């Protein structure tokens, strides 16, 4: 197991390098000349050359990349000009809030997606199945940012049950309970689409598994239907659903951009949107890299869990 884990971790390294290359190339696509942007249109050629040398822009693209990568590896993501602090500090602080939100959503969508999918498969074509299928369809078609607004209107404005925005109450907040009440609406909103996707796939996987020969064997052994479904069929279905949960982590991390904007959650998504409108590209770059890297790790985790469940993968 440990050997496999290390191997899998080693395989993630080239992917992480690939991510840095793509981010680097995107950043290199910036239209216009950075030196002119800094010095203005009437800069002398000497000054432009000096700035270019300072920024390392006189070197070849691969050279620039490796210098940049070396800095990244030392934790130097540059300095955010709009916030006037090191990018890495801001990004990690914000990432913490995003992780709480995305983590809560992943837990919600996994639990509700699996339960809805199983019930839907077991009651195939029955009323429960139809209701679940209907809600899944609505869930995956609804713009999450719109759903967030609806939930704020209903639960925060009209019913006044939950706070409409923020992570902690401004006055006298700060406890875990305060966090939970603030977390409820955004995490549910963020989980809806992923719940729908997981429910759909769980239903399909369960139906596929229930037709397998080993399910007939389980029935022929005289096992109760409950045991056939929740032990034999569910475990086999779970193996194929887990990678999908890993992929959903990506959608949840990405979707956090909208949800954090709607609920003013102080996470990395909201930071990115602000950074884009202030053209603070180093901040954008740092944020994108950290989130993308965490997505790779989420998938790694899903892979590990799948591996633990399925002994066939060991060989």
């Amino acid at each position, binding site marked *: 197991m440990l050997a496999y884990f290390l191997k899998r971790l080693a395989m993630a390294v080239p992917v992480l390098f690939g991510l840095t290359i793509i981010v680097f190339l995107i950043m290199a696509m910036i239209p216009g000349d950075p030196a002119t942007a800094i010095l203005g249109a009437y800069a002398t050629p000497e000054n432009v050359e000096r700035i270019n040398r300072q920024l390392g822009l006189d070197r070849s693209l691969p050279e620039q990349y490796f210098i940049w990568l070396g800095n990244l590896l030392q934790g130097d993501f540059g300095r955010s000009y709009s916030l006037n602090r090191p990018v890495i500090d801001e990004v990690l602080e914000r990432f913490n809030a995003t992780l709480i939100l995305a983590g809560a959503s992943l837990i919600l969508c996994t639990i509700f997606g699996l339960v809805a999918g199983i019930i839907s498969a077991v009651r195939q074509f029955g009323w429960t199945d139809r209701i679940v299928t209907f809600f899944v369809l609505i869930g995956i078609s609804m713009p999450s940012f719109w759903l967030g*607004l609806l939930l704020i209107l209903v639960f925060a404005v009209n019913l006044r049950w939950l706070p409409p925005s923020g992570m902690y109450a401004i006055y006298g907040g700060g406890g875990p309970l305060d966090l939970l009440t603030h977390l409820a609406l955004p995490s549910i909103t963020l989980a809806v689409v992923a719940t729908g996707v997981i429910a759909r796939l769980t239903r399909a996987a369960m139906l596929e598994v229930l037709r397998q020969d080993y399910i007939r064997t389980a029935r022929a052994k005289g096992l109760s239907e409950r045991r056939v479904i929740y032990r034999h069929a569910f475990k086999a279905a779970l*193996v194929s659903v887990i990678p999908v949960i890993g992929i959903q982590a990506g959608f949840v991390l990405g979707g956090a951009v909208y949800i954090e904007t709607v609920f003013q959650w102080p996470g990395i998504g909201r930071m990115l949107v602000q950074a884009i409108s202030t053209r603070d590209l180093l901040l954008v*770059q740092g944020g994108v890299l950290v989130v993308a890297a965490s997505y790779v790790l989420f998938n790694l985790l899903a892979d590990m869990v799948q591996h633990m469940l399925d002994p066939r993968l060991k060989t």
Partner: protein
Amino acid sequence: MSTATDTAKPAEPAKKSGRPSFFALLVANRLAAFGLGLLVAIALAALLTPWLPLQPPDITNPANRLLRPLTEGHLLGTDQLGRDLLSRLMWGTRVSIAVGLSATLVAAVVGSAIGLVAGYTGGRTDNLMMRGIDMLMAFPYILLALAIVAVLGPGLMNALYAIAVVNIPFFARNIRGVTLSLAHREFVDAARLSGKGHLRILLTEVLPNVLPVIVITMSTTVGWMILETAGLSFLGLGAQPPLADLGSMLGEGRKLLFNAPHVSIIPGLMIFALVMSINLVGDGIRDVLDPRLKSGALSRPAAATAVKREDVPAMPETSSKAALDVRDLKTEFRVGSDVYKAVGGVSFQLRERECLGLVGESGSGKSVTAMSLLGLVPTPPGRISGGRVLYQGRDLLEASEADLRKLRGGAFAYVFQDPLSTLHPLFTVGDQVTEAIRAHQPLSYREAWKRAVALLEMVRIPNAAERAGSYPHELSGGMRQRVSIAMALANDAEILIADEPTTALDVTVQAQILKLMDALQDDKGAALLFITHDFGVVSEICDRVAVMYAGRIVETGPTDEVLNAPAHPYTRKLIDCVPVLGEPERRLDAIAGLPPAVNRLPQGCAFAERCPYAEAACREGEITLDDLGPGRAVRCIKPLHAETPEAAQ
């Protein structure tokens, strides 16, 4: 919308053939029809917007700010600048659809081009391109789009490019897969030999065949792309004022959520309706195209076979001495309007301690017969439509699910054909045997595990205690089948039902398993119903034999009598199929022809078409199973006899 026009075309010719057309099927699916209607309505409204009697969308009127919906002159109210919301909604919808479709088109063209080239070229180019695509997919979807917008700057066109780029991998992957399978087909090779250039081959030979996949991928991604471009606009990174799409309307309206919610809710509702209608149509198309849905192959099998008997033989006055008495059992499969009579009235008795062989080709209904006994035929599509299964004076076809469960694995135990697919891949074999024990005996897990190890020893698995911790894929085929047998013996079954238990095994292993089953059956005193297509196996293990053809028993009798003097021509042919050691000159006749389809059984004898002795009388009326001496019967109007020269050969 492309789907709507595409689907309408094939409707005409299909109607003539009598089968429901693609379009008819799509409309028959109520949800898909609703989606299609909604989509067409929105698309029409968006197309006709310039000619509709709407107010200009950009004329501000501060006097009429934030009017509520249903105000006179402003059906949906006005926004913070007093602009008519209905008009803005329609114009915004146009922009959103146009941007979504354009992004889809860009992604489709670029992605398909990458996929075509990668799939067609193969080798290193393919590898390099696909690694790049994988890298793009390692990003959380929206994040990459954000990074691109960050660099290009906010704006509707830039948002369009960003969303298109992010979706390129879906097209590249799908198209590459299809192209790869086409790249070495005959017609492509032929084009290459005829001297056509690569580009021409790609465009004239490969592309037309890949086009359907491109269209399907477009229809599944267009909803997402509309949603995502709206999302970028919502964040203020897409459409910039005064241009407005649905997303930017929603984003601007959000600031007024508390005092004028309609300004943001209405555009959101439109995005929702648009995306949902596209998804509904997409799902509908997928369902119609998936043949498995119609056949019921995607249906969940119930815990027990449905029993709907049209004819039920009378209960016998005296209970027979047989361990199991099957009378006129009928099982059928209903697929669409077809009825497959897999078992068409089978009767046999399994006596105590005996081994009865049920023999026939695949498709003869022998397995279905065995599965029907305890309701293990999947429903849908299967159902038992007649007969009785008598065990200890009870009719098992009347038993409740709970009673059936007690009998399954208890008094009745099954051993199935392929132990790799019939054992659960994710549980250890010891665990699976333990579970079988605990389903019927009140033992703790630990005690049951010990018994399971003892059972594994009994079926002669070496190092049973250690092997119990193995998973099925870690054992050899023979070992796996021993595990299945151990599982069947877990609760001292009175009746063992073995469904081709040796078919998937090597010949040497077959012999070992047969010997083991024979010994264990003697030892435990169980009755054995042994299903096989192989008369060689029958001769080794069975006391009596019943031969099945097209869902019915055609001959039955003691094994040596049937082997030495088969009365039915079909039995004769089956026996001839067995090679005999030391008789290399013996002809191994495969039986010419195929068994009849059980949804269209012919009149008279089902074997007549393949029978060398068939005559006109064979194809008329019902041919009965007639006695032919003690314990023997045959369903043939001119049975073969031992005296005939052919049989003596």
